[in-house]
């Protein structure tokens, strides 16, 4: 018989001191806020009436699904997050949350968000939300990000899907309008993230992430930013002459598009020194305003039309 004296066994398990705020940080709240906003627009411009409780449920599920994607992204990328100054303060590199904890948290949220949307709203929307999470985590984070400089071009589809999910949640079907919203975000993503990558080039190079400025150089990136911005402005304005969105949207799109194009030209022209850094930072900041402005216009139009029907 063996006698084990438990006092001689050294126990040093890791006991978490993570607060809810650390888990909220895993959800990437800033990205989540943009997802909520674009999804809200997709839901509001959809035809027909959606009960407020179902609308709230849809937006909540899409937001939690986006948060789950963020947590799973941080689970997989904790090694490179620790190497980059922009991400070194995230909960896993700081030691507040372990990788298995983040994985469990992300998977749990993904499961509940998809199932809740499917059960309470409709399974087309639930399936599309599941595909969005899968695309962001498996295709973009695990597959593309460390493999190709086109990572954010293809991966941008995941960020462009929330308004489509919201439209499907409201109507149960697909249509041209949500696909236009998808295309706007899809072509907005490269200029936005390549502007960020230009002034965070050292970070990405240190972490070995093949962002376009690291692989092809800053000048090639500036050209790509300009080309994608031209396509973006054309696509964002097209719904007006095609008759999908009205003149208020069209004019806003033209004005904001001129600004976006101006900032992209500035990035292309200023290639060295502080002027180049300033130009990329300005484009990055304006690109957020650009997308917000376009979607806010669509949202405001619907709100004003509902409040003052005689205007239209």
């Amino acid at each position: 018989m063996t006698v084990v004296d438990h006092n001689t066994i050294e126990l040093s398990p890791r006991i978490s001191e993570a607060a809810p705020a650390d888990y909220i940080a895993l959800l990437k709240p800033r990205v989540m806020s943009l997802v909520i906003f674009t999804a809200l627009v997709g839901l509001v411009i959809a035809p027909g009436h959606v009960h407020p409780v179902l609308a709230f449920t849809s937006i909540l599920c899409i937001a939690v699904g986006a948060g789950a994607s963020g947590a799973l992204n941080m689970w997989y990328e904790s090694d490179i997050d620790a190497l980059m100054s922009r991400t070194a303060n995230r909960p896993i590199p700081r030691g507040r949350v372990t990788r298995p904890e983040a994985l469990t948290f992300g998977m749990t949220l993904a499961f509940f968000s998809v199932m809740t949307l499917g059960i309470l709203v409709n399974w087309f929307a639930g399936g599309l939300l599941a595909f969005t999470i899968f695309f962001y985590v498996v295709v973009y984070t695990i597959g593309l990000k460390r493999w190709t400089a086109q990572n954010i071009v293809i991966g941008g589809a995941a960020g462009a899907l929330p308004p489509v999910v919201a439209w499907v949640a409201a109507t149960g079907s697909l249509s041209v309008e949500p696909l236009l919203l998808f295309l706007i975000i899809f072509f907005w993503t490269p200029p936005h993230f390549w502007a960020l990558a230009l002034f965070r080039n050292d970070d990405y190079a240190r972490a070995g992430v093949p962002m376009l400025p690291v692989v092809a150089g800053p000048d090639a990136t500036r050209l790509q930013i300009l080309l994608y911005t031209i396509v973006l402005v054309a696509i964002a304005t097209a719904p007006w002459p095609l008759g999908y969105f009205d003149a208020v949207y069209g004019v806003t799109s033209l004005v904001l598009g001129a600004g976006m194009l101006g900032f992209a030209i500035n990035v292309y022209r200023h290639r060295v020194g502080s002027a180049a850094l300033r130009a990329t930072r300005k484009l990055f900041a304006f690109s957020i305003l650009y997308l917000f402005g376009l979607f806010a216009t669509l949202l405001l139009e619907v709100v004003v039309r509902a409040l003052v029907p005689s205007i239209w």
Partner: protein
Amino acid sequence: MDDKRKPDGIVLTEAQLKSRRQRSVAIALALGVLVVLFFAVTLVKGPAVLVRPL
């Protein structure tokens, strides 16, 4: 009997106890929201709650 005897096993620090309490409250709130959500949607949909188009 000595009431001040140290307990066996792992003793959590104040910080660990506090964070565990906060996490427990957050989980309880999340579950509460889920229950209220399902209840509210059941009221809204009524008998149609079982009709779930694909």
